[in-house]
């Protein structure tokens, strides 16, 4: 589940050196996830989410040389994005009544960011299926980008391993291996965040 911080530091070094391909890898790995991070925190306002995500990524570019790799790159960008959201909400009164998301609860936020188990309680009963479903999606977004995509393509969209390999530009065996690692990472992550086994979480969501 741990993001590969060494390769993220290498990615940042390549970006700082002006490597165009590294920039595209960075952007493709982070924009959609950051947009999803901002969207529910801005009441589902698509344009606001775009503006905030763009601003956060631009600020991340300006601060890129200061990224030390102590946290995952996405976690670092999310911290910038949180400040952008606060600024946006201050400047745009219509969003004042925004929701506090369950993944913004301190214990869950810490669990998602650091994957340390929160106190156990029945999230589905407390917050309802939709919110918990969104929390599962947040967990997917916290996995390395290709893991979340591969799992979604396989289990939600029903693509074959061959198709996933083609989408990722890798061979069948590599795609199979990536899916196996992604499953392990996802299982560990949701069981840590929810404090329950996948079977129980599934039952709760299907209730």
């Amino acid at each position, binding site marked *: 589940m741990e993001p590969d911080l060494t390769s993220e530091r290498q990615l940042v070094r390549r*970006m*700082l*050196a*002006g490597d165009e391909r590294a*920039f595209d890898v960075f*952007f493709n790995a982070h*924009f*959609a996830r950051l*947009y*999803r991070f901002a*969207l529910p925190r801005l009441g589902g306002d*698509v344009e606001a*989410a*775009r*503006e*905030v*995500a*763009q*601003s956060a*990524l*631009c600020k991340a*570019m*300006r601060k*890129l*040389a200061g990224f030390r790799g102590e946290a995952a790159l996405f976690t670092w960008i999310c911290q910038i994005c949180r400040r*952008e959201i606060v*600024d*946006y909400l*201050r*400047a*745009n009164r219509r969003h004042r009544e925004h929701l506090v998301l369950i993944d913004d609860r301190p214990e869950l936020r810490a669990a998602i960011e650091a994957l340390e188990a929160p106190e156990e309680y029945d999230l589905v009963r407390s917050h309802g*299926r939709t919110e*918990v*479903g*969104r929390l*599962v*999606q947040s967990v*997917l*977004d916290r996995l390395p980008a290709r893991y*979340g995509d591969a*799992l*979604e393509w*396989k*289990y*939600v*969209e*029903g*693509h074959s391993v061959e198709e996933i390999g083609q989408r990722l530009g890798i061979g069948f065996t590599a795609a199979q291996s990536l899916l196996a690692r992604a*499953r392990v990472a*996802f*299982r560990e992550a*949701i069981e840590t965040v929810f404090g329950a*086994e*996948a*079977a129980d*979480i*599934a039952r709760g*969501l*299907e209730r």
Partner: protein
Amino acid sequence: MTQREQAPGAAEAGSEDADMARVLLAAGQRPQPPAEMTRAVHAAVREEWRLLVEKRSRQRRWAAFAAAASVAALALALWAAGPLRAAPGPAVASVVRANGATVRVAGIGFRRHAVREGRALHSGDVLATDRGGHMALALADGTSVRIDSDTQAELAAADRIVLSRGALYVDAGSSGGQSRLEIGTPFLSVRHLGTRYEVRILPKQVQVSVRDGRVRVQPATGHALEGDAGERLLISGSGEVERSQVAPYDSQWSWTAQAAPPFEIDGQPLAAYLEWAGHELGRPVVFSSPQARATAEHVLLSGSASGLTVTEALTAVLSTTSLRSRERDGALVIEAAATH
């Protein structure tokens, strides 16, 4: 017990993985940002990254120089490099006409400020117009840039504007070939080789229309292409190009006359004003007789036409003279008004 929908791909997995697949299926697909939005944000963030890389490259050059120099030279080099690190960008343009326009000032959050004529704009400022709004800017090198309604553009640098929504019109005027202005869009950038053109973002394409001169279009991938005066290029994200014709007086340009910087008529010869109006309307001025030309050259205007569009001002100005205008064969014909 009810029959549950089985997650795609779950059948081939073990029971533990089947549970995990059920969780994923129940959570559903994550929302995706629209492709057009992704391209626009990519362009804006890439521009920021490009500036960072250029800045670091300059700083490295300065550092190499400084290391080889004496302490005194080092101090001088740091002093000289100072402006490169300045937090607010330098002033790169000023507002010459604004209606329904706002600016989000670089680096100080999301608050938008109404734009007034005369305001200095800095690199990093994000300009936006409402539906029905317009704005005209003068860049430091004299290039005129007009912003159509419902548009958003960032002044990325003195010679680069990143358009993320709507349309821009560039009139390099007398600066012509000296101007190095580049317009960036989600999947291409445009530089002019002549004087006047429009760049417009459409749902899945970018439209580049050339009124005078030529432009060079550089797609994000693939070879550069050129557009000549009177050409309209529709370029898709995958690089497909459709060319068509657009006359310099086509209705497509009418918004640019509405957004045109005002012409200060007070003390100017009528002929100079007519030349300007013809330029803005895309129609060369033709005098129907030597007498009409002589009248235009001798009449001196007084007062102001500010707040009027080019067409409104032309009618208002000519109504005070013995001349009138009409449009014929692409020209603006100036002739003696009929006497009653």
